[in-house]
């Protein structure tokens, strides 16, 4: 894995921000990985920093691992097409979301709700899973240093140009 932070291409940014499902992983000092789902994401205008928003009470172990090691892997998946992209980084930090980020999250979540409903997941279930307490919200940001395709098939896992 290259250590140089990169700028994500516009196509990757568009896909990441399109409102698919988001799963975030990190690992602790004993190489134990953990996972939690993200509620939304945002890429910096320069394309070099990605922010993922999560409900802190749902991901204690993840936040602890991020604090301990800074490692992160995030997969973004489009529920209907199964198109999936994974980003990795090693400088992840958790912080309070800015007021502007809080304002924009509902629109991001609405896209996720729509996509899951389009894929046949019952709406009440989607709304239950995506509900959160604003006071519980946490942002995890990182600089992507590698990207991989994870769309199911023999090409899954192949490295992509950022």
């Amino acid at each position: 894995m290259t250590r140089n932070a990169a700028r994500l291409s516009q196509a990757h940014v568009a896909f990441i921000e399109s409102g698919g499902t988001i799963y975030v992983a990190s690992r602790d000092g004993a190489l134990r990985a953990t996972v939690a789902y993200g509620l939304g994401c945002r890429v910096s205008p320069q394309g070099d920093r990605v922010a993922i928003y999560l409900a802190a009470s749902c991901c204690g172990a993840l936040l602890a691992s991020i604090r301990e090691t800074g490692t992160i892997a995030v997969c973004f998946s489009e529920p209907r097409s199964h198109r999936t992209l994974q980003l990795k980084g090693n400088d992840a930090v958790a912080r309070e979301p800015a007021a502007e980020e809080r304002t924009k999250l509902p629109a991001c979540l609405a896209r996720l709700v729509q996509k899951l409903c389009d894929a046949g997941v019952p709406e009440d279930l989607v709304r239950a899973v995506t509900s959160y307490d604003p006071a519980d919200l946490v942002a995890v940001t990182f600089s992507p240093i590698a990207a991989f395709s994870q769309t199911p098939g023999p090409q899954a896992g192949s490295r992509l140009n950022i």
Partner: protein
Amino acid sequence: MTALARPSLISIDAIRSCLEGVNPAAIATCSADGTPNVTLLSQVHYLDADHVALSYQFFNKTRENILANPLATVQVIDPVTGAVYRLSLRYLRTETSGALFERMKAKLAGIASHTGMQGVFRLLGADVYRILEIEAVPSRRLPEPVARRSLLSAARLSCEGLAACTDLSQLLDRLLSDLEARFGIDHAMVLMLDEDGQRLYTVASHGYEASGVGSEIPMGQGVIGVAARECTPIRITHMTSDYAYNRAIRAGIDQLGLAGALETEIPLPGLPAPHSQLAVPIMAAKRLVGILFVESLDDLRFGYDDEDALSVIATQLGMMIQLFHAGAAGEESAGSATRRALMQGAAVTIRHYAIDHSVFIDQDYLIKGVAGAIFWRLVRDYVESDRTDFTNRELRLDPSIRLPEISENLEARLVLLQRRLVERCPFLRIEKTGRGRFRLDVRRPIKLLEMAEGAGR
């Protein structure tokens, strides 16, 4: 995370509804150099109280990681309540054949079709993991819906009903009516393993236009054949063409036309496009006796609990079948009374082909194999010496029928023959007259025609 060493407080048995593959799970692993990886996972399969198996479909980073570092975390979601659980796991081994592999392969076929991934999802292995801990992730949950029925109560009452049956025919009828009344299962059939262990034949069914009694399916074919070969339940939760058992073959035979040849195939009953299918082996003293098969037009009709309930019933069935077989030693042996019933109508010709014991009533196929041999023996005795009353025992000892000593099949073959006669030949009936005794009731004059070995149809 010292909790990894502690036994889990939440049992995997209690959250099996999360493991039906309705929503994808996510798995996080870590490479030897400390890079985490996260990906979606189509199938987390319940194996037992301490283990799950994950579908291995592609050699990807997850696979590479768990071979180097066996610790993984999987997040699953209840498709009804939205409850989320995190499973801490340790990879143990990969199975590439056998019961677990076949169960996951069949289920994956349904999941793949449902998610538009048919032809993409292909099971390479079943990765078995030990469950280290299960964590309930705090989340808003929807209320649990009220269950339509208690499967445990239905299983108990059905077992009690089956235990009260005194012969196989009664047992099968009771089973199928209980499946409908107590479990709401509208489409079901029971197949028995034939003498050489190569095929299963339908001995009873419920909910189909034609009963299909006497139809056969080879070992290893489709949901039923695979369940029989592996002696394990096979369950599919969505419609898939991968396991469309033998209708395609059947259509091919029909298209060939086979001019001049008389049909000796009975169509297998079954829904043309089942969304849920479950085949449960019926075992007796560790030997496969047959398969209980149920299906539905609804997705996700049969879950882990249904599989457990029907497995309990299949165990009871197996015990009863074994009991009837063991009790056969006490069958009454007398019985050569004759009785000519009132004859009506023109004579029919019954032809018997020695090569496969197939029997035709005029031009219509009736039965073949062991049941055909039994039938031929009965009608021959009837024509030659006016006999109408017979015993199971004499059939068991008859070298021309060639029943293996250990087989429970005589009863099943008699039930099959009896039911085929009801459907195809109403003027010939087999009626039970006592324990291990029955009567051949003939209502039309019959003529017998023996076709020698080598005689073509």
